[in-house]
């Protein structure tokens, strides 16, 4: 149960950090915030890579492959589109 307690502690603390950091994001950047945080939620790629690479069974390999594709769309699409948007905000005359 020790690992569970540590994990829950980290979960709760991370939510507090999230609230502190996100409340400082101005409304004008809320769309890039969503796409950028979306890219971060693609972090499940880490689990997906292991399932696709350890290849215990055909089923887990297929699940892993599908998860890698979904997570990678999320990661690459999310960070790229956020970058595209944020560069428009930075443009100066």
């Amino acid at each position, binding site marked *: 149960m020790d690992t569970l307690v540590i994990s829950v502690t980290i979960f709760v603390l991370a939510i507090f950090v999230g609230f502190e950091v996100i409340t400082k994001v101005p409304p*004008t950047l809320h*769309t890039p915030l969503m796409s950028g945080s979306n890219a971060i939620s693609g972090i499940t*790629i880490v689990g997906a890579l292991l399932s696709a690479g350890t*290849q215990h069974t055909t089923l887990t390999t297929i699940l892993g492959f599908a998860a890698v594709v979904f997570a990678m769309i*999320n990661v*690459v699409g999310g960070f790229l589109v956020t970058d595209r948007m944020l560069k428009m905000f930075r443009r100066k005359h």
Partner: protein
Amino acid sequence: MNVLINLAYVLASALFIFGLKGLSHPRTAVRGNLLGATGMLIAVVVTLLNRQIVDYTIIVAGLVVGSAIGATLALKVRMTAMPQMVALLNGFGGAASALVAGAALVETMLAHQRAPVDMLVATGASGLIGGVTFWGSLVAFAKLEEIVSGAPVLFKGQHALNGVLLVAALVFCGLIVWEPANTNWYWILVGIASVLGVLVTIPIGGADMPVVISLLNSYSGLAAAATGFVLTNNMLIIAGSLVGASGIILTAIMCKAMNRSLANVLFGGVGAVAPSAAASADAVYAGKIKAASAEEIAMVLENARRVAFVPGYGLAVSQAQHLLRQLADLLEARGAEVVYGIHPVAGRMPGHMNVLLAEAEVPYEKLLEMEEVNGLLPQTDVAIVIGANDVVNPVARTDPNSPIAGMPIIDVDKAHTVVVVKRSLSPGFAGIPNPLFAADNTLMFFSDGKRAVGDLIQAVKEL
């Protein structure tokens, strides 16, 4: 080796936090996003060093396919279509989490390892949240892309059915804990969650989409955090809770901006039927509407010292953002001050209008929040409403029985002159007439948004 991998994960988590912190100002935001991406790159590279990986072909294939699709989407998407894009990305994040949790369950059972209860509970949570997120997001995508009607879909017993499905989903979560060796329970759970995801999203109408997308954004993070509990990976837990918190904050902001509770948005089905209590359109509009031509409006703009544009979803639909910026340039060249008033729920997602106007190279300093622009409006000569309706409806302040009662609005009616660009007098999403259109200081300009702004540019040039 494991220690190094875990330390690298801590570094990646820190970079995610710094990345989000960078988004607190447009100047630092690009760098912040790059920090986040760097964290992700570190996480991926370090994971690939794991010795348990026996073969890289499938991994590389997945990375290439996913990157190609992701990059194509990101580089091709129009700024007006950003809500759909974000909805889709939310869904994919949820799907990935559900798939990873499922694969982890299958692997644990195959290895005949004892699965701790908390891991099994987390697996159930991943499957449930991931399934709801994926299918809910696909429905939101289809509504925004207008593949299906954006109108709320309501049927008798909808809430009861959703309740039954939720209970069934929780029962299957219990079965996963009870008999983890039977992995079918997990896939049945994902199936139920999928149906639930569709059913909870179809009753939500177009203008409530900002809330739904924010909520699904939060779910995609929570699904990732649950998967972190499945894999006992703290980086997933941290990243997932950051995203979860972000989505929850945006959801709360959107609800507050409509003066509605989350429950009311999710279950209310607002916009499905015209409220009978509201005054009829005829009574509000009869004989009081003043339609104006581009030339007449140009004459009003001729001596304006301050002009405020108030855009809504109609701006995105007609793609008028670039022309609007040109009109602003012309007015500024004539000595007027131009500002933009942005209501939090204008458009189909948080910050939608800001992105459109940034695309048209409007400096972000001119994009004012609701409170800020409301302070300026009494000293504003002309307020031009383009493609917005409910967010400028004064009934929100005056009629406590109205469906939008108490919703904070942009007080354009306090400007000396109001110009409303609109195709017709049709009501907005709330289905109620807008007395602003009949006010003494309002001029209606009946036209398509883009054509209207083009005509105004022409007329101002000819002054």
